[in-house]
């Protein structure tokens, strides 16, 4: 029997993963949630048919979206995480003793429930005493926050679905307002390769660059995402992602990682020419 999960990366490009069996499928109030067991990528979480994570390569995403800001700003204690209902980001953050509070705002309780049941490798630290989960619309949650967080991590789905509101100027402005004077916002910034993704990436970069004094983009190689090539945004009120990197302090923590290193940290901000050009166009 041939049993494949396919995702369209563009109307003309399809990425397929062989499936052993489907573990979970449910239509929540916001989206369709599926979890597959696959021979190559282990368990795969898909929302509305788009791969969110696979057990095999999630470490790349979760390490890059957390350790980059954590290695720059040594005073991060209060963190707001938006989206990320699978728990991977929280898992990485709880490895830091200095973190005092992690507020997780996830719109869809079904995602958390499904990941707790089927993706224990990601959801394993959701019960950490520092983690507070709020099932709310993130725009609404953050409107009420001012000068409250050192770090905001925006781990959203694509800008074309229920997360559209997390790619807007009003959202980034509200994030700015919710951060302390030396706060950092890191977001998943999509892929620059295919045309539709690239223009969405440019739009959100433009909005972030118009909101924060420091706004830089860094990259990682993530096999199961569109084009295997993914970007993150680093926006900050004060710290520069390379100049203010404290490699010594971070390495002294002795955190074992499989993708992130402080050397890679610097390199990740060096972008290919076509991407530099795209970003410059909107800055």
């Amino acid at each position, binding site marked *: 029997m041939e049993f494949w999960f396919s995702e369209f990366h563009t109307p003309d490009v399809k990425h397929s993963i062989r499936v052993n069996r489907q573990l979970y499928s449910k239509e929540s109030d916001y989206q369709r949630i599926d979890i597959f067991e696959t021979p190559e990528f282990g368990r795969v979480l898909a929302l509305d048919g788009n791969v969110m994570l696979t057990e095999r390569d999630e470490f790349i995403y979760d390490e890059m979206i957390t350790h980059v800001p954590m290695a720059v700003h040594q005073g991060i204690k209060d963190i707001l995480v938006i989206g990320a209902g699978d728990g991977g980001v929280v898992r990485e953050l709880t490895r830091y003793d200095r973190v005092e509070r992690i507020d997780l705002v996830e719109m869809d309780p079904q995602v958390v429930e499904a990941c707790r049941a089927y993706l224990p490798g990601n959801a394993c630290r959701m019960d950490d005493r520092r983690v507070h989960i709020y099932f709310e619309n993130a725009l*609404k949650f953050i409107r009420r926050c001012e000068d409250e967080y050192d770090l905001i991590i925006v781990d959203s789905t694509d800008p074309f679905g229920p997360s559209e509101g997390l790619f807007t100027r009003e959202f980034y402005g509200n994030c700015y307002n919710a951060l302390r004077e030396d706060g950092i916002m890191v977001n998943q910034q999509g892929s620059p390769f295919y045309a539709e993704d690239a223009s969405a990436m440019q739009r959100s970069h433009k909005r972030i660059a118009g909101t924060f004094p420091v706004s830089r983009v860094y990259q990682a190689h993530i096999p199961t995402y569109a084009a295997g090539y993914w970007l993150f945004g680093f926006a900050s009120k004060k710290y520069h992602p390379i100049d203010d990197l404290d490699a010594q302090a971070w390495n002294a923590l002795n955190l074992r990682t499989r993708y992130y290193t402080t050397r890679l940290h610097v390199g990740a901000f060096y972008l290919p020419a076509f991407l530099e050009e795209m970003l410059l166009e909107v800055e």
Partner: protein
Amino acid sequence: MRVVPFDVPGHKRGRGNPELTAFLGQQCVGVDVNSMKPLDNLCHPVSVIREAEELAADAFGAAHAFLMVGGTTSSVQSMVLTACKRGDEIILPRNVHRSVINALVLCGAVPVYVNPEVDQRLGISLGMKREQVEKAIREHPNAVAVLVNNPTYYGICSDLRAIVRMAHDAGMLCLADEAHGTHFYFGGGLPVSAMAAGADMASVSMHKSGGSLTQSSLLLIGPNVHAGYVRQIINLTQTTSGSYLLMSSLDISRRNLAMRGRQVFHQVADMAEYAREEVNAVGGYYAFGKELINGNSVFDFDTTKLSIHTLDIGLAGIEVYDILRDEYDIQIEFGDIGNILAYLSIGDRSQELERLVSALAEIRRRYQKDASGMLNQEYIDPEVVASPQEAFYADKISLPLRQTEGCVCSEFVMCYPPGIPILAPGERITKEILDYIEYAKEKGCSMTGPEDPEIKNLNVLTKYRKEAQ
């Protein structure tokens, strides 16, 4: 049904215009057909259009309903032309839509304005008070009709039942402009609809809150009005090539409203109420609601309307409107001098409302300034010197704006939307009005009406010019 088309439209189900078909879709151009035996004729409906009109009448509680394809403007004009002939008086609030006064230009009827009360804080005109209508009826016993906005653009309703009673007691018709009130026919907890209140005619913008295609509308009549005469009046100005796209959209929307309207508008009202609370929690803004109700000039309030007063953050409504669109990709219905209106309807979802509220919070944080020196008047009492028709057709001269003070205007000046005239043909131009026009232009309102698109000049009547100087 496969019929060989040797009739208009010439695109022949889209074959002759492949670009149009690719753009609109085969389904859409396939429906763009001409009147024919099995499809009835809008000018004289006897079969399927008649059935659609009967179903609509039933759904809206009217004696008869007319499918309209020239917008609610055409419904309003047909209503006025049915009620009035040359020289007849018609009682109406001054904050009517331009289509009403246009109809007076066409038929030569004379307006008797009831000056609506103005909410000083919000700078918006309210409904007509009962005693004002009573006085107008007493002073103009020969008037033929009273026209009521149900509701105004901002969602404010007059005491329609009482006004219907007063009009009928005086032998006058009661006409309702329900361009913003389609949902009143399908909502629990919403203001009374014109047909339920006993009004004789109502113009209902199905394409606004009802979900049909732009330019489609309904004209409803009660039992006191002769349907055949109304049809004749409609045929004076309406196209003989009624669009089946528009008519089918009316029929499908009527079905949707009849089956799901109550539930949907309940949700819309809940969403608007939620948004009001959230906007008011932001601070600086005032999203007004049922607290305005005072039993008379605000007899009821349409809770699906999300109107927000912005002057307290130091920004004119039109400025907030522009920032929302230019910087936040949010298009709202209109912004005027002191307020904005976000139109909520059957297609809205809560996540978009969160965006609107958050954007308003951001605008306040980034742009708030000192609120002094802001004009807040939306309504200026007019002095009517000549009838709209007389003024429109009279000999006139074009003068620079500032030199027109004291003259009588021959044209409209208005911000669009909302399309309520600042000046209508036949009205005296005052310094206050000129200040208002210049202020509105400066703040970026989209001004329409005059021959001169930049509104540097106005046409005034030569006849009254000497007396101004």
